[in-house]
């Protein structure tokens, strides 16, 4: 799953360690999410959403355009 975490973090001027502190996870976890090696759990995704004050779907992109339109 693609995400904008690295860009968002850079916009805030935070290091991976600083973001990890804010999320109460390890720096390795932040690095793994940024590099696409690990998709966070839903609670962690919500935490990211709160830290960056934006919806989850603006941080993460699962590659599906117009999700929910195929009902």
């Amino acid at each position: 799953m693609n995400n904008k975490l690295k860009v968002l973090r850079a916009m805030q001027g935070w290091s991976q360690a600083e973001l990890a502190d804010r999320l109460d996870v390890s720096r390795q976890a932040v690095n793994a999410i940024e590099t696409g090696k690990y998709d966070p759990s839903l609670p962690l995704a919500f935490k990211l959403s709160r830290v960056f004050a934006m919806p989850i779907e603006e941080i993460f992109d699962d590659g599906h355009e117009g999700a929910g339109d195929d009902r």
Partner: protein
Amino acid sequence: MATKEQAMTGERKHPRRPLSPRRRRYWLSLGLAAIIGGVIGGWMAADRGAAALVSNGPVSESFAIGTSIAWAVGLAICMLVYHRAIDDHEERAWLWAGLAGWYAFIFPAPVWWILHRAELAPPADAMLLFLLSMAVNGAVYLWLKFR
């Protein structure tokens, strides 16, 4: 001046906030595990014959009872603290590593046992299987956690 790694990860020195309760529990569990490992290792070095871990040679009763309690009880306590402290990413690494370690035991153990019954192999060595399982577990955990 930032190092190459710092430039790539955005890592730089900054005043760290105090350890969160989760991180405190995490380091407590690792510290406890290190102390238990150190005690067992030191005792093993001091006890006659115990230094050869992959061996069925005799050890003293005190060493056998002491290290059994330290391993079973100490490890259980460490694991309880550890699992309450790890984040999602580490939990995933731990679970996959545990599965890999389990496979590294269940694939070779019956093969070795049945080959021995046909006198095609020496008797199965539980400690060698344990060490193989732990080695695979450790390798997968480190790869998933730090790659």
